[in-house]
């Protein structure tokens, strides 16, 4: 999966979970400060990313990710590590 494909799907998940229009979600958007994620929503986001990409994330490491761009990179790395390159 390309980084662009990952980015598109990450932003769709973020939009659905945090109820923010997808066009307002930038790579630089901070989950808490810009997108208004509460602590519980952060947990839900991690679960939603795992479900969307069929991956397993270390929850502590995942919750260290503060903005959308970092999340895209984090998930791309896990996809590569977990051999999910061709998943659609």
């Amino acid at each position, binding site marked *: 999966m390309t980084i662009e494909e990952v980015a598109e799907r990450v932003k769709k998940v973020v939009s659905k979970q945090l109820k923010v229009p997808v066009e307002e979600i930038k790579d630089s958007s901070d989950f808490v400060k810009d997108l208004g994620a509460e*602590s*519980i929503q*952060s*947990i*839900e986001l*991690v*679960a939603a990313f*795992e*479900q969307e990409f069929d991956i397993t994330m*270390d*929850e*502590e490491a995942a*919750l260290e990710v503060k903005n959308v761009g970092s999340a895209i990179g984090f998930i791309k790395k896990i996809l590569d590590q977990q051999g999910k390159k061709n998943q659609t």
Partner: protein
Amino acid sequence: MKVCIFEDDKFEQLYPLTYLRPTFELKCGAIKLWERISRFYKDCEVIFWMREVLVPVFKKSLERVNEPQLLNDDVLCINGRFLLLDDNAPSLKGDEEIGIQGDSIVYARINKERISGKTVANLFESLQNMKTVLSKKEVNFPLISYPWDLINNNGKAIKNDFEISGGYVLKGELHPQSCIYGDSKKVQIANGAKVHPFVVLDTTLGPVIIEENAQVLPFSRIEGPSVVGKNSQILGATRIREGTSIGPVCRIGGEIEESIVHGYSNKYHDGFLGHAYVCEWVNLGALTTNSDLKNDYSSVSVYVKGEPMDSGSTKVGSFIGDHTKTSIGTFFNTGAVIGIMCNVVGSGGVAPKFIPSFCWYLNNMFSKGYGFRMQVETARTAMSRRKVELTQEDIALLKYVHEITTDAREKMVKKSRMG
């Protein structure tokens, strides 16, 4: 003669209550199971034997734990699941003997020569081996086998504790505008305890014990047999029904019936808790409520070792592990089993009957939450508010439980995502 209280191999049947404690640390009545045994054999030195993983934590409080060199005298080994009421205890006197009930060893009276100086790595295993050499006796003593056994015996145990501890005591403050409804001598109000105005202590069904420095705030009603532990607060207009034990340093509000709150836990607000056992450091959010009776009055099934089991009882509430938190408006089904360090967020419906340890239940989905390290930090914060330290030994035990519960947790998360 020494008395050795041992944990046998049935501890898993008492999960989640025994993840962080040996079976004999469970409470029934005003005190713990081991305290009931120790109280009876008061002239004997009492030693303890438990799972090795628990030793670093309990060595501090119980001291004489898993030490073979202390088995240097005639010894009466007693199963830590033994519920000692009245005088129903095995005798210290007599020949060597092993008391068996079903597949459980209830007690073993062993001579010094047989046990002293032996290498005992695991006392329970040694006792199993002695079944073939000691005189065997079939016995019928009360053993706590499942969590609901603690609840079903709690009222009886409280009555027993009241009598054994000397009956009527009035050392604390009983406000003149409070009321004892029933036998006025069926109360114990210990030093420093305060019963505020407009409180009713109803002793018609059994005694009410208010321990040191506990407070019962106005408009509360406590039905005996019940116990309010040391330094606990019963908040205004709380309704405590018969058969309830509140441990030390708890804050309790709302309605609670035939339940045991082990200690250091809060149920501050309204909401009903019935036929439940709540471990330590639990916080139940406002309006958290459990069912303890099915609408068809049939017996309640409870998850034991990961599988549903018929309790044979029509009144069973929830069993909630240490450090678990619930949000406002959380509903638990009849016979729910909630592991340790869970976070259950009410979403309008009834939470599942089994929530594995360290799980979050949020928007009708299971998740792994924010990870072990953060959960430990939350526990540290909660404990420090009551001036209790979370030790390295506690953390190591939590880590162990986190590991042994991984499969159950991951299975539930996966199942929940499959819808």
